[in-house]
């Protein structure tokens, strides 16, 4: 098999300093299905953007059919016969399937004609659909067809433009199992006709089922490229999540006391209304940190939002010191000594165009102590803000600096200061150190442990498995909206074991055991 595409030592550093790719090697053979796996943030999407000409690499080379190429935009990539099916469909909902497929390259009645040749168009589309067995009604409006068919339209669009190498970015994320099977049939049909497919996913079952080879990315680097038939899900998962220990936190063993938060059979939907949480049951005690481990998008966000009142629960109960939280307003919940460090500090956790002071008084401005008659007491607010900035080491000239001008670490300290200064009995910390410098990470970790030792119950959600392991006393692993395991965090617990559950392999194993009995 000849080499179709080769990417060598690709680096990509964004202007804000994020290194998304730190030395990726990828070799694609002609006619293969090549799976690209890695956790969120491993650099898959960046790599694909570089491959497709949407971004320029900081360094590294790309060779296509043996010759070095530079793509200045997707047009270059398309001209070379590459096509990308994006995770989020790029279709015009009010146009028909056929119109979407030919969009931009409509057949015309003559080379200079302004009029579309609809006969030729429908013949070409019909032929395309026949050839590849991607069944879809060309005259149907895109907004009326189901998701699985929309994806076929995306694929047909790419094929119509003459692509020979198809990049599918997490194509199964939005599909039902049946639709996934149909997609796999289509992919196999394409391979028979000599196409090459790059298949991005983090579902290992799919890697095993469909790919010929698999490349594992981790933290922006290529870890390994393996022949699928020579490997197994356990090995891939170990390669995906195993990583250097980044965090070392000094902490005493926990002394768990009474139950602070008790979640029973909790169910909730995601933003689109699809089930995101089903049957979550979890207790958190005073004086312990419970970490939630899981690949991002398995219900962590929804869990935190449901507890804090930002999202409606469908069923189940959330008891906080024997008081039901479901049905309470966000303001009521915040007033109950529940601190919430949200996962997105820039849009949810702070107002970037407000001052540090305005960000810090969010829970206090109604407090009579901060008022002077009908007015806010500038003096009191200033005093309070100064103390907060001192205690939580927020480095800024004064309290009237815009929050948006702070570095990521300092901004996160503002959020932490606000949420911890209310002396929470329950602290919910979501991605508390994402994108934060090492110094701030250590500081934030110490503060979280301080709260635990002070008798607070802590729920920690983090995409960094090493962070979850460093801080947690117990670890609950979520997979597709369910808690699949609750593990005591002892020195025997390994990342591989957690990773095994994170990727849903635990469920499969249990099912097999049940079947065997």
């Amino acid at each position, binding site marked *: 098999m000849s080499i179709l595409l080769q990417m060598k030592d690709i680096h990509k550093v964004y*202007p*804000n300093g994020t290194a998304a790719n730190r030395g990726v090697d990828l070799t694609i053979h002609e006619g293969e299905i090549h799976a690209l796996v890695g956790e969120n943030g491993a650099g898959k999407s960046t790599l694909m953007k570089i491959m497709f000409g949407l971004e320029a690499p900081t360094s590294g080379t790309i060779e296509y059919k043996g010759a070095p190429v530079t793509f200045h935009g997707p047009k270059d990539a398309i001209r070379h016969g590459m096509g990308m099916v994006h995770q989020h469909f790029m279709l015009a909902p009010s146009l028909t399937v056929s119109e979407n497929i030919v969009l931009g390259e409509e057949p015309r009645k003559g080379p200079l004609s302004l009029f579309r040749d609809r006969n030729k168009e429908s013949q070409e589309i019909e032929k395309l659909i026949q050839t590849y067995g991607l069944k879809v009604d060309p005259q149907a409006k895109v907004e009326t067809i189901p998701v699985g068919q929309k994806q076929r339209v995306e694929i047909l669009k790419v094929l119509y433009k003459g692509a020979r190498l198809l990049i599918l970015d997490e194509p199964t994320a939005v599909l039902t199992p049946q639709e996934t099977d149909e997609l796999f049939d289509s992919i196999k049909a394409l391979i028979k006709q000599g196409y090459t497919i790059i298949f991005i996913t983090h579902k290992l079952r799919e890697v095993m089922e469909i790919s010929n080879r698999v490349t594992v990315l981790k933290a922006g680097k290529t870890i390994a490229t393996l022949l699928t038939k020579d490997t197994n899900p356990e090995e891939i998962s170990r390669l995906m999540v195993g990583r250097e220990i980044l965090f070392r936190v000094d902490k005493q063993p926990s002394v768990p006391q009474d139950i602070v938060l008790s979640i029973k059979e909790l169910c909730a939907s995601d933003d689109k209304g699809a089930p995101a949480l089903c049957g979550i049951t979890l207790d958190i005690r005073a004086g312990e940190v419970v970490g939630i481990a899981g690949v991002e998008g398995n219900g962590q966000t929804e869990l935190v939002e449901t507890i*804090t009142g*930002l999202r409606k629960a469908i069923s189940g109960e959330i008891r906080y010191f024997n008081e039901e939280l479901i049905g309470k*307003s*966000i*303001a*009521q*919940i*915040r*007033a109950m000594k529940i601190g*919430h460090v*949200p996962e997105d500090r*820039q*849009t*949810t*956790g*702070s*107002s*970037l*165009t*407000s*001052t540090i002071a*305005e960000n810090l*008084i*969010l*829970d206090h*401005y*109604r407090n009579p102590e901060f*008022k002077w008659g*009908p*007015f*806010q007491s*500038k003096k009191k607010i200033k005093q309070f803000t100064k103390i907060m900035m001192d205690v939580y080491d927020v480095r800024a*000239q004064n309290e*009237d*600096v*815009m929050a*948006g*001008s702070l*570095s*990521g670490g300092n901004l996160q300290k503002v959020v932490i200061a606000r949420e911890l200064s209310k002396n929470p009995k329950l602290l919910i910390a979501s991605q508390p150190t994402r994108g934060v410098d090492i110094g701030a990470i250590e500081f934030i970790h110490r503060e979280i442990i301080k709260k635990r030792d002070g008798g607070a119950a802590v729920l920690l959600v983090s995409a960094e498995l090493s962070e979850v392991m460093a801080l947690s006393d117990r670890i609950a692993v979520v997979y597709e909206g369910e808690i699949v395991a609750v593990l005591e965090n002892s020195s025997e617990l390994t990342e591989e074991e957690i990773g095994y559950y994170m990727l849903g392999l635990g469920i499969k194993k249990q099912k097999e055991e049940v079947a065997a009995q």
Partner: protein
Amino acid sequence: MKTGNATILEFAGIAVAVILALLCGFAVILVTSDEPLNALASLLLGPVSNLFNIGTVLNKAVPLIFTGLALAVVFQSGVFSMGAEGQLYAGGFLGALAGVYIHGLTPWLHLPLVLICAMVGGALFAAIAGLLKTYANANEIVTTLMLNFVAILTTSYFVNNMFKDPNSGGFARMPYVNPEILLGKLFPGFPAHAGIVLALLAVVVVYLMLYKTNVGYELRLVGKSSRFAHYGGIATNRVVLTSIMISGAFAGLAGIVEILGVHGTYKDNFSAGLGFDGIIIALLARNHPIGVLIAALFYAYIQVGAQTMQVGSDMPREVAVIMQVMLVLLVSSQAIFVYLKQKYGQKAVK
């Protein structure tokens, strides 16, 4: 330090816009006038050449200050209301009704009552758009623009029919309001009416409300980051509705002060765009109450200057329209720039 620089930059940006707009007007005058120096002089110096003109500038600025404040408030909460014009009519109408048809009160009770009626009228009419936005998720730009027609045409119907003064001749207007509550001249020989005092008071009230009270804190927070406000437990819909209604109340005041200070009664179509001029004022002022005061005075100055130029030279007053339009273009393009910078600039700045 950074905030200071940003403010200075923004101020400089507005100054550049104002200067460019003025230069455009000057250029037109230089090209078309036979006596350009005379025209320029009467445009620039006319408004301050005598007490009468100074008073006229103040009188013209009064309604602009009120509508400018109305829009500054609502813009600060992130709501792009275009409805001050309609709210001005609705509030002015209700206030005028109270001024015309309620008898027997001392002026010290009657005037506040009339002002309150105008505020209530404006606020309630604004609440329609507010409720449509918060409960039906209707775009406020569309609803407020449409509701302007509803207010203007409904009040026009009333004042042409059941509330028309039988002695008005051909004019569509109400009977005159209680003469004791009219906003009189500040002092004899100076045409400025007492509305300017109310307008200055309103600037102070809005400033304190926006920057020194919890209402203003919530309002600005919702405008700056509605997700953050929501996360913090602030009922964002309630805040949006409140801000739209406060805005309506000030638009209503613009209407009634114009009636009590200038017309003496409710006249059909008396505003002719004060609510839309308020949008320009608020944009020029970057939604700051003090800025509104300055921008409204500047705007009125140009208008009076155009009038004196028309009288004193061969140039028509429409030159002022050219400058106003240029100002709108320049300032709104800057506003878009600032908005984009705030929205997308942060990441790059970091």
